[in-house]
């Protein structure tokens, strides 16, 4: 009953691509069964699994560079007349994604060995990491959109587990739940979109969907509808406006998780989804416009929120949202390669920044407020230098990775978009450079403001975080967990000063820093746009826009301007730090409170849902009592005999059944006109 369909005769490495997700799955299973016994050795198993996946990904990529797309599928489910298949596929795009995912996951595994070493549940942590890596790689290898959806939900589940890893912190539990439920709003759109596709095309396979779009099997409004529904899924997963609110809260998870899931891989899945469905999007100019504007607005809004935040991880989270907006903006302006290129470079430098932040947080004993940091440059050499590289890369300074991809996005908006989009992109680029260096300067330069690290009374109180905690507690779970200090704290560390962390934590930083420097060259114009040639070969995604030389200068100039402003404010003090907040306090407040979106959601969705539920519940319980009073003594008299040890609702139910029946019958007859 099972038969494989081989598109290519030669059986090379690509045939074994299915093993790439299997290695982390095996580590997950091992840790699930034997995790408690293995204790701190679990990290080695996780690292070994990912190392194998990474090696195999490299081999697969090398083979794919010279070869063709490879597909292998089995029959999985028969739906009516149609057969749904499952399997795997190695395309140019996912060969690149495999490298990104396995590499970032590998370095995050290495980093976590040190970062999580004092946590009792380290085996659970590594088990979840394995499960996540499996799911993410499965998502990437999927040859059809249903299989993608399955893994899409699985990564969402892993994200839930990992954000809520320290579930005994009420904020973490609430954040996990919020992340899961809000992304599900997007998933609803995606699911509806893909079922509509199946309904019209008769298949979930990418290849057949592309063909159907090319052959005009779908009407134009249908293409737009489906594209927008699929885009809704991407909006949820990639934290785009207005569903982005879950990502900053998701920072409650351990920092390596933020680096892996909420910066480099899972949140990029939305961008990847648009990438694999690109022919569909290209066929609808309405959808492309919506995509472009959503991306642009997200990029700008998120950057403004990053300007005023003081939590090192939340700043990076807003930055991630903003950069994801950039990618989506690029895709929306026909910059297929630009968007995916930025996905790759961003994965490297944002993972670097998050791990760098983790290194800092670890060194200052789990404080996250940048106002309590400062002066770490001399104390943490590797972290500081690599963080600087990451910051320069994201700001778009020549010749680092971010420069090349950001320049292509600007070119794409300029050539295919309109002036407004280009302006937003430019402003965002400026803001990006500014907030990143605000973060950098406040953390690494000046004096250390954290006080004595071993003083237990020196608990930092973060107003913003406290405010948000109350918010999310209201949205999500009730409080009332017993506080359990299991997450790493350095009790045996004698020093009361921050210092550089062990090699296992700095090595990943160095690897990622190297990538943040060189990754951009693979699509550099003077090397002939190698990545573009690779990604677009055999794919109908239109001509890729390229910018003129002046654009490159402009983008660097904007970045330098942003950095200079930050330098003037936070290092030299030419401009007072509270210059903007004192001049325009209401705007400052707006930024700081996330444009009040959480409150709006609370008022528009959460409260009404609760109220509707309670109302329906009340109806179930009491409306009927009202009916009874109206009906009068008839029922109460006949019910009295029984009513004594009853709560008096039986007659009610009986009446409701009878009257409900009458109403249904009456309505049906009225609607269908049987009376006439």
């Amino acid at each position, binding site marked *: 009953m099972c038969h494989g369909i081989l598109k290519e005769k030669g059986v090379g490495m690509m045939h074994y691509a299915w093993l790439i997700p299997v290695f982390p799955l095996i580590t997950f299973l091992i840790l699930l069964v034997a995790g408690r016994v293995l204790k701190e050795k679990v990290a080695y198993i996780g690292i070994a699994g990912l190392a194998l996946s990474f090696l195999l990904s490299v081999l697969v990529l090398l083979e794919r560079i010279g070869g063709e797309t490879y597909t292998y599928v089995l029959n*999985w489910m028969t*739906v009516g007349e149609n057969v749904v298949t499952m399997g795997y596929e190695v395309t140019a795009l996912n060969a690149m994604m495999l490298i990104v995912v396995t590499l970032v996951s590998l370095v995050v595994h290495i980093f976590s060995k040190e970062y999580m070493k004092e946590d009792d549940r380290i085996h659970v942590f590594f088990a979840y990491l394995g499960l996540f890596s499996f799911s993410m790689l499965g998502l990437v290898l999927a040859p059809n959109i249903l299989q993608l959806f399955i893994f899409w939900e699985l990564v969402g589940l892993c994200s839930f587990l990992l954000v809520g890893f320290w*579930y005994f912190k009420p904020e973490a539990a609430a954040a996990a739940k919020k992340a899961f*439920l809000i992304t599900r709003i997007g998933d*609803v759109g995606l699911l509806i979109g893909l*079922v509509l596709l199946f309904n019209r095309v008769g298949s979930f396979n990418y290849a057949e969907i592309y063909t159907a779009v090319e052959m005009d099997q779908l009407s134009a409004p249908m293409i737009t509808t489906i594209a927008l529904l699929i885009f809704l899924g991407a909006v949820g997963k990639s934290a785009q406006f207005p569903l982005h609110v879950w990502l900053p809260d998701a920072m409650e998870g351990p920092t390596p998780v933020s680096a892996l899931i909420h910066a480099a891989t899972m949140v990029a899945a939305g961008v990847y989804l648009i990438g694999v469905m690109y022919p569909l999007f290209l066929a609808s100019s309405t959808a492309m416009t919506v995509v472009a504007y959503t991306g642009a607005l997200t990029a700008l809004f998120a950057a403004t929120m990053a300007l005023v935040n003081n939590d090192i991880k939340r700043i990076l989270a807003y930055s991630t949202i903003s950069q994801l907006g950039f990618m989506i903006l690029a895709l929306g302006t026909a910059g297929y390669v630009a968007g995916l290129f930025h996905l790759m470079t961003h994965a490297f430098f944002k993972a670097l920044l998050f791990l760098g932040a983790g290194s800092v947080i670890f060194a200052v004993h789990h404080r996250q407020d940048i106002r309590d940091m400062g002066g770490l440059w001399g104390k943490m050499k590797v972290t500081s230098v690599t963080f600087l590289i990451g910051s320069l890369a994201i700001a778009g300074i020549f010749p680092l990775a971010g420069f090349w991809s950001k320049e292509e996005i600007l070119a794409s908006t300029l050539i295919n978009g309109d002036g407004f989009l280009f302006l937003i992109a430019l402003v965002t680029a400026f803001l990006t450079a500014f907030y990143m260096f605000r973060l950098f300067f406040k953390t690494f330069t000046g004096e250390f403001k954290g006080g004595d690290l071993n003083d237990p009374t020196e608990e930092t109180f973060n107003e913003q975080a406290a405010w948000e905690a109350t918010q999310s507690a209201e949205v999500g779970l009730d409080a009332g967990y017993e506080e359990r200090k299991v997450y790493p704290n350095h009790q045996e560390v004698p020093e009361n000063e921050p210092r550089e962390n062990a090699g296992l934590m700095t090595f990943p930083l160095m690897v990622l820093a190297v990538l943040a420097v060189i990754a951009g060259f693979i699509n550099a114009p003077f090397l002939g746009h190698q990545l573009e040639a690779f990604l677009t070969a055999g794919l109908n995604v239109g001509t890729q826009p390229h910018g003129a030389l002046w654009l490159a200068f402009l983008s660097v100039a904007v970045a330098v301007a942003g950095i200079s402003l930050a330098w003037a404010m936070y290092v030299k003090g030419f401009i007072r730090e509270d210059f903007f907040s004192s001049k325009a306090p209401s705007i400052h407040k707006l930024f700081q409170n996330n444009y009040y979106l959480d409150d709006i959601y609370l008022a528009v969705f959460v409260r009404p849902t609760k109220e509707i539920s309670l109302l329906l519940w009340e109806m179930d319980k009491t409306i009927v009592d009202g009916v009874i009073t109206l009906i009068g003594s008839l029922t109460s008299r006949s019910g009295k005999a029984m009513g004594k*040890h009853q709560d008096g609702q039986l007659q009610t139910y009986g009446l409701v*059944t009878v009257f*409900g029946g009458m109403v249904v*019958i009456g309505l049906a007859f009225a609607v269908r006109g049987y009376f006439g």
Partner: protein
Amino acid sequence: MIVLETDWSLMTPEISLAALALLVFTIDFMTGIHGKKPFIGRLAVLSLLVTAVLVILLNPGGGSIGDLFLVDPFARLFKLIILIGVAMVIMISMYYLDRNPEVYQGEYYSIMMFAALGAMLMVSSADLITLFIGLEILSISSYVLAGFKKHHRHSTEAALKYVILGGTASAFILYGMSFLYGLTGSTSLVEIGQAMPVLFQQYPALVGMSFLFMLVGFGFKISIVPFHMWAPDVYQGSPTPVTAFLTVVSKLAGFAIVIRIFTLAFGFEGIHGEWSFILAVMAAITMITGNFIALTQNNVKRLMAYSGIAQAGYLLVPFAVVLGDFSSTVIVFYSVAYLMMTLGAFAVITLVTEDSGMTDISSFAGLYYRSPYMAIAMTVFLVSLGGLPLTAGFIGKVNIFILAAAGDMLWLAIIMILTSVVSFYYYFGFIKQMFMTEPRPNDKELFVPGGLLTVVTVSLAVVLLLGIAPNLLLDIFNQYNWMPSFN
């Protein structure tokens, strides 16, 4: 004469089950009324499994006894669902009865078997009288079971409510049936169905009346809104395994007969369009009401009652959209998934609530630390009920969704998807209790008896297996001509 000419071997499983149930009943008499009787439980499970094997092995080609009794793939599959369901309920009950020795044990098992017999007769019937007899055997057994803890106020109250309201529902059904008989002079569903196109032209109001009265009555039996109000009260008051029985077996058997009667009698082209919209609206209201009210519940059994109401709404969707083989495949697949995930969940619920002596959701506190396997299994059942991938519930829902889209009722499918997102919120309530809350101080590690362990393991295996390899069942189902007497 029909009695002599027909092939009574078609009824072998039913006859065997009746005999075995009487045997259990007799053995119970011979061993005294009081005391624990686990061996009778085992005998009952064995009897049900033997009957299930008979259903599988005998009459694969199908057939019928007059127009009274049909053996077609639809009936056989639902019989298997009923038998396996009741067997699992009895395995759950054995634990429950062990902890509640004041309940008369032998009677419990034999009545459970009679209920299964009634349900089996019902799903095979093609005649209004046979159908009603099967329905009443099932219903009356259910009333008795609901009140089995006769010294407990809640249980007797539940039974009393159930009897009176169930009687009302039966009256509706009978009244609706009487119209059909009056119009056609026949009680055979096939004959009624053949006469229906002409009748509907002549007497649309009477046909409509008959349909709607039956819809009200059956709507009560399968607890769809607005005829659902009895369910939470009865479910809460009944002994927990009986709640499981009502939620799963009773409801699925009710569904089977609703599909049977409405397909055969009202199924032809012209009239399906008339009522499909009413059903679709009721499905929508049922999904919305069930899921939203479940959000407000703290009692596990009431919560599961509302969740079960919502699930009935999901099951109604394919039926409302279209009739025929594809629709039946989707319904039967979801029924199997529903059977397994709900009974699995109820096995865990019985264990936990009996251990803690309360039915509040907080009885699940810290279950993961007391019995990791039970907590993980429960999580799988819950996410399957909610419809996350890699579970049978996901496959079932995707199939329903695809069917609804194909049948131009996308709006209904969208309501289904949206309300199932709502459902995650209350299923999370369990997950939060199990994993993210400390066990209460006196709670020790939970001992899981063999029967419950078997039920949970079997359910878990099926839920996951069907989620990963749905074609194991779908390939078989797709070959079926579910109801040869339709078309």
